[in-house]
């Protein structure tokens, strides 16, 4: 597949994620949209890795493997981040009995 298609798909998914972050007020939904953005990036990275593999296959049989390894690490980080983030949201809910991010403006006081 021409790489363009993957690029546009990933960009579209990413922008939908951005729109979701900006539009929703529920903290959990916002978090999920962030995950969506991460996945879009993962997809693109894998596509690029295959592109490089195709281009440089002759010289280096392992060309392009870095992309997929990086995706692996992104997943690792995403997992860790989700666990901590949800803990924070749970804590926020315990304090304010709501998951509305607008209530976070109490930080201003």
């Amino acid at each position, binding site marked *: 597949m021409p790489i363009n298609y993957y690029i546009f798909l990933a960009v579209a998914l990413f922008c939908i994620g*951005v729109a979701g972050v900006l539009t929703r007020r529920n903290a959990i939904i916002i978090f999920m949209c962030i995950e969506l953005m991460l996945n879009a990036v993962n997809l693109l990275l894998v596509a690029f890795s295959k592109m490089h593999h195709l281009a440089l296959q002759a010289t280096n049989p392992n060309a392009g493997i870095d992309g997929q390894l990086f995706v692996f690490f992104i997943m690792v980080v995403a997992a860790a981040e989700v666990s901590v983030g949800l803990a924070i949201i749970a804590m926020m809910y315990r304090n304010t009995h709501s998951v509305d991010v607008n209530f976070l403006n109490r930080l201003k006081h």
Partner: protein
Amino acid sequence: MNTTQLLFWFLSIVALFSAIMVVVSKNPVHSVLWLIIVFFTISGHYILLNAQFLAIVNLIVYAGAIMVLFLFVIMLMNLNADTEPQKNKWLKIAGVIGGGALLLVLVAALKDADLKNQIAQTGQGEIGLIHNLGIALFNDYVIPFEISSVLFLSAMVGAVVIGKKE
């Protein structure tokens, strides 16, 4: 069109539709479910690109663990559609426009990129196989690998500490 292309288009459309539904759904539980479908389609894309290991890992980690966690938290807080707080209409429009603008800018930037005609190899390629990934991971990237275990440790400790009741 051959199978590959067909599959690509099908998976892409489902992915995009599901992503939009994630953002638009009123009920948080529905959003989670749509997100799981997005993950399935993305895994489908990975398989298409012959990144087998990643496809499986994506399913296990994301759809299996992370989304389940999300569901637990949503159930815990007893969120459903009517308790969903609504944003100011103008801000919603601003958000959509913001996202849309980003999309336009990126597309415009990339449409004339030189790598237009490069091909992402589908269906073949040794590098997606677990055997090769494993070798590369434990030879060249062993240090990040070890450190990621430390990262997990700190995340666990952090989650426990934050989530503790007083």
